[in-house]
């Protein structure tokens, strides 16, 4: 049964399309693998990071993927905690996506470190005053929790499991979800706080930032679950359509709320066109990377999905819109990290001393091929992890036993 459900998952696409997908994956894995080796041998030398813009594409990738994970998890946890029966079929899918996306983010942030081999020190000798130490501890706890929840969820479905044991498993699952709720809220908002707590960086130093990160995580994570559910769910039945309608509406509301917060974040400090924040807003909107905001984010990530979601009830269109939201959210993450670093903290510093060899004392940044290469590799790793996990746990595409209670 397991094998047939997996083959039906992969079989939702035509054989030609499948071959193309795997060919692309192999290409991405090779390119990314070369990037990984380059990173291990020569550190961050081939990046365009500098001492003045020390964080770039990979940090944006890290907050993007950890946001996807937190969002997907919060969706799953909400289904368990609030017993949203109608959405129960997607709870495992959401959990599994949460378990896959976070390692992608952690891989990227690991490669960002100058001394990857010392990452364990954050566990051994943490400084809990540091937001970053909190993040690492929360992630670690969260990963263990997600693994435990997945395991419980599958065990409750095992054929040999009696109804009493299964009920006990589900109760435990609910307890874990309740624990996970504040944990996921904590780290999704906490990533925002990691930036927002820095008084030196005006662009980040706002109370709204952690909230914005949290809502962003919910929006992008929910959109990802919706897109994957639309694309990979094996049974295109009435229940699938119903869930797609609900998820489409949820994504629409979240996109609107997130956009409202974005308006507040950008417009409040720059309304009267005075102050350094105004300059940073101008950089985002009209700077060298204006297209990241206007085209990738606003057009493809907000306007098109809103139009599609508001007007259409077709599950496939809903899936496409959600997919657009989930993918283009990367632009939002980039626009949160980079603009916070582009202006010199002291006027004239950019011309004080230069680095003719590595160009590390500059306030200009554009991700190099190598940075994209590693990002591609991390993505290929995530896709591989996803396919391994859905083969190991094909039950992810079967509705949990609880769903039979719907309507009882």
């Amino acid at each position, binding site marked *: 049964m397991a094998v047939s459900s997996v083959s039906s998952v992969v079989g939702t696409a035509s054989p030609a399309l499948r071959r193309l997908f795997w060919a692309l994956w192999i290409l991405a894995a090779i390119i990314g693998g070369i990037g990984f080796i380059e990173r291990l041998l020569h*550190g961050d*030398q081939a990046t365009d990071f500098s001492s003045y813009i020390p964080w770039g594409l990979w940090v944006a990738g890290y907050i993007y993927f950890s946001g996807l994970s937190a969002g997907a998890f919060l969706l799953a946890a909400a289904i368990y905690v609030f017993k949203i029966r109608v959405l129960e079929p997607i709870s495992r899918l959401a959990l599994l996506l949460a378990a896959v996306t976070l390692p992608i983010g952690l891989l990227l942030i690991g490669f960002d470190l*100058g001394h990857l081999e010392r990452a364990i020190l954050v566990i051994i*000798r943490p400084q809990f005053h*540091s937001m970053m130490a909190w993040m690492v501890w929360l992630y670690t706890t969260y990963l263990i929790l997600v693994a435990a929840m997945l395991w419980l969820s599958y065990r409750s479905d095992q054929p040999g499991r009696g109804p009493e044991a299964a009920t006990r498993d589900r109760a435990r699952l609910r307890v874990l979800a309740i624990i996970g709720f504040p944990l996921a809220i904590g780290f999704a908002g906490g990533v925002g706080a990691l930036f927002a707590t820095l008084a030196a960086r005006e662009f980040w130093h706002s109370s709204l930032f952690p909230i914005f990160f949290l809502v962003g995580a919910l929006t992008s994570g929910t959109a990802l679950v919706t897109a994957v559910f639309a694309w990979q769910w094996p049974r295109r039945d009435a229940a699938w359509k119903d869930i797609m309608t609900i998820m489409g509406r949820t994504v629409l509301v979240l996109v609107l709320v997130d956009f409202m917060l974005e308006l507040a974040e950008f417009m409040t400090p720059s309304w009267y066109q005075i102050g350094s924040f105004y300059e940073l807003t101008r950089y985002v909107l009209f700077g060298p990377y204006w297209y990241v905001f206007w085209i990738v984010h606003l057009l493809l990530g907000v306007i098109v999905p809103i139009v599609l979601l508001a007007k259409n009830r077709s599950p496939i269109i809903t899936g496409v819109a959600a997919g657009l939201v989930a993918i283009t959210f990367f632009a939002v993450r980039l626009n949160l990290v980079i603009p916070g670093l582009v202006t010199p*903290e002291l006027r004239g510093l950019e011309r004080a001393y230069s680095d003719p060899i590595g160009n590390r004392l500059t306030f200009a940044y554009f991700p190099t091929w190598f940075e994209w290469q590693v990002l591609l590799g991390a993505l290929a790793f995530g896709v591989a992890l996803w396919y391994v996990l859905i083969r190991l746990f094909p039950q992810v595409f079967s509705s949990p036993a609880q769903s039979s209670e719907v309507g009882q």
Partner: protein
Amino acid sequence: MDRRSFVKIGGLLGGALGAADLLIIGDALANPPADQKTSLPVLERVKAEPGEDVLIRMQRELVRAMNKPIEKRRWGMVIDTRKCVGCHSCNVGCIMENKLPPGVVYRPVIDLETGSYPNVGRKFVPRPCMHCSNPPCVPVCPVKATWQRPDGAVVIDYDVCIGCRYCITACPYQARTFDFGENWDSKAAAGKDGPLALQTGRKYAREPSFEYGALWHRSEGVIPGSPVGNARKCTFCVHRLEHRQLPMCVTTCIGRSTFFGDLNDPTTLVSQLAVQNNAISLKPELGTSPKVFYLL
């Protein structure tokens, strides 16, 4: 215990043992190793007199401060922008002293032009680490790899730093740079001087740095040799202070515009300059309380 292992152990225990660690450092510095001088006989033969070179005075004050327990000193620096001629020799001296690779800089000199032609002015602002009394870079470190010593110098343990660069983003003066592992032998000059430039660059790359009184041989690789892959910053030349030497930037300043000494001693030159009416610190509104002051 040699000094390197002392620094390493001090660093490793630094966060975990907290106050106990301070006692160890204090104790070790109160009983310096045999190769360290507690006095400079040459200096004793130079009589203090009005109008003497400020370097002599600061040297004398340095010896006096170093003979106090570490927690009784508080290092500070004053930079007279009216005397600074913008020659960058403090920066060059610093680079040579600490064998800084390309991209790493502790004391860039900011060249500020004000006004518009023909009414223009020019001002130079050397920018070392401010060694803030309330340093924003310290609490952000996830592994306690950076801290403020009892004498006020903000330092980094290269053997612990994981290279996350959080401290770099937290510094409002951008006084921390990252060692990406580059060397001066790449992109060396072409033409007839090419081989010489390459040879010099290679030789320089092999030179160790003596920061924090240890020997640092940089190297890249799967496990980079620190300080490659670390955040780096001005240390107030604490390794030189141990030997009763003023920070390199102070000694190479041709205009005598950089002053260094113990702010806890009201008779020192820096203490007297730092309280002048024209003394300011950068971004005081942030509450970082820098120990580097500028005279306007």
